[in-house]
């Protein structure tokens, strides 16, 4: 299985190498083998020892696109499709090459999670302008060109529809 760890740049890769019986397994994560012993497991929760360290994981969400779980109190979201970001990046206009285009538009509907620039800021092509949550995933919307933020059409927490203008960049 291969996941992208949300909010970080990491992509994680793992597999069950073998079952030892008695609820014990050898698992491989990031290329390294670990011993795992299940203490308790239900649909929502798993308690286990991983290489002599206890962990508890609770499942908050398991959708087609992502898994959110809380491990030892830390919320972790795995994106199941590690390349989703790239698709959005492409759609958001960066790859279109139309440098003369002033408007940065959203190719997907969503909700603005954070705004990373202010009016007057100089941005380079590929810089993150804002982050929006869409299909329960957080995606960064990046500038499609070098330029200066002329105006921002978005508000934190507010929804945006597909093709809404997010910013003017000149």
């Amino acid at each position, binding site marked *: 299985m291969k996941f992208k760890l949300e909010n970080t740049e990491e992509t994680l890769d793992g597999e069950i190498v073998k079952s030892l019986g008695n609820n014990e397994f050898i698992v491989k994560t990031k290329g390294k083998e670990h011993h795992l012993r299940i203490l308790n497991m239900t649909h929502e929760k798993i308690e286990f020892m991983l290489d002599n360290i206890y*962990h508890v994981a609770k499942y908050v969400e398991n959708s087609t696109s992502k898994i959110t779980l809380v491990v030892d*109190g830390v919320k972790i979201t795995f994106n199941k499709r590690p390349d989703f970001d790239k698709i959005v990046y492409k759609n958001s206009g960066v790859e279109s090459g139309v440098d003369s285009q002033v408007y940065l538009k959203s190719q997907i509907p969503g909700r603005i999670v954070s705004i990373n620039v202010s009016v007057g800021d100089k941005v380079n092509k590929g810089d993150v302008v804002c982050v929006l949550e869409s299909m329960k995933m957080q995606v960064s919307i990046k500038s499609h060109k070098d330029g200066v933020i002329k105006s921002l059409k978005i508000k934190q927490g507010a929804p945006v529809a597909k093709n809404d203008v997010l910013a003017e960049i000149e």
Partner: protein
Amino acid sequence: MIKKILIANRGEIAIRVIKTCNALGIKSVAVYSDEDLNSKHVKMASEAYHIGAASPAQSYLNMEKIVETAVSCGSDAIHPGYGFLSENADFADLCEKNKLNFIGPSGESMRLCGDKMLCKDAMAKAKVPTVPGSPGIVEEVEKALDIAHTIGYPVLLKSVFGGGGRGIRLVHNEQELKQAFELASGESKAAFGKSALFVEKFLPKIRHIEFQLARDKHGNAVHIFERECSIQRRHQKLIEMSPSPVVDQKTRDEVGQLAVKAVTAVDYVNAGTAEFLRLDDGAFYFIEINARLQVEHPVTELVSGLDLVKLQIDIANGEEIPFKQKDLKVNGCAIECRINAEDTFLDFAPSTGRISDVNIPSGPGVRVDTYLYPGSTVSPYYDSLMAKLITWGQNFEESRQRMQIALSDFYIEGVETSIPLYKTILDSKEFIKGDLSTDFLDRFKILDRLRDDLKKEASQKGDAALAATLVHSEFLKNRIRSNKEQSVRWKTQLDRH
């Protein structure tokens, strides 16, 4: 002697008051709105009465209904907690009229504390320094310019009708002041029919330091040390501690005596708090009296050993404060973190819902005041404070270490919380060396650091999360393949442990 107290409040503070009632053998009466039928304070009180709909105006702010309930169930006193009716002078009067012992100051004293200008006057007479500025309302721009000239720019132009940061304008010179005065005066007249502006010196990089006070009906008054409450967001306190890293015993004695003068000046009776601003040069300016028990009273309890709710009840009973100023010594250091249901990254927007699971920390020096239990609800109708986590240590560093561990142990499932923010703050070198101010979060870009900390944490738990997901999806896959048979097999395996 008080035998039965109706608590005109909810949440953790209602529970806090119940605990002292229990210890003293006093009956406690809870009141609850529709929203709170399943709340912990209802379950813990000796008796509980429904007082109205979820909206505070129809329940916890409904004076008549609360007083009626108190009278009909035979309560002889009312504890208002904080918020809601606690600083409502009319409510204090209504209690008195109904022969209910209101555990707080008189309505008259409360009115004096609540009126910015009257209070400032009283302080001037008592020689308690307030923030430099106009002695009262300024009607004409020439007067404002005079005052600004005397106290020095920059100054703040404020409206007495404002509050919580609203209606405040920062001006740096004469010209700005003239423009601002015109605008503000116009706004005020439009909204309230008259202009009521005043001028105050703008104070940069300030600390919020307050003194716990108690004054009895016999005129005895003491201060119970200071609390440093500089870590704030949007003018609301997040972290409080006692003692303050910048208050030595000499300062404590001096400013404490000012605080005692302040409550005496307004004939305040009960436990209360005098709030001060402290500048970098060490000057203290009185800002206001909080005429009630404070959210952050536990830090004072931990360093003084006192039960402040008990002290309130004793004073309401007409007893004299059973100790003198010289008997009080700061013992160790206490820190409180207000565990709020809020999303730090959505501008601290409230987060509400059902708490499906909660782990409350414990251990040497750890105290938690909370209404949470698994299955409880954080309601959108009331404030976002779910719990207060307080740690005590022999010194600041021990207290801080214990807080860090307790924050890590505090697990709340179902809402966003301010816990991760506090972990980042408690870990920062600026907090450790005590470089505090009300703009701490902005000054040290704490939210950016928090973002980094969260990334780091997620990255550290990546292996465990992945391993869990591998084994768990195997489990789910097998369950789908042969639901019943598998679950039996798994159960059998698990039962072996």
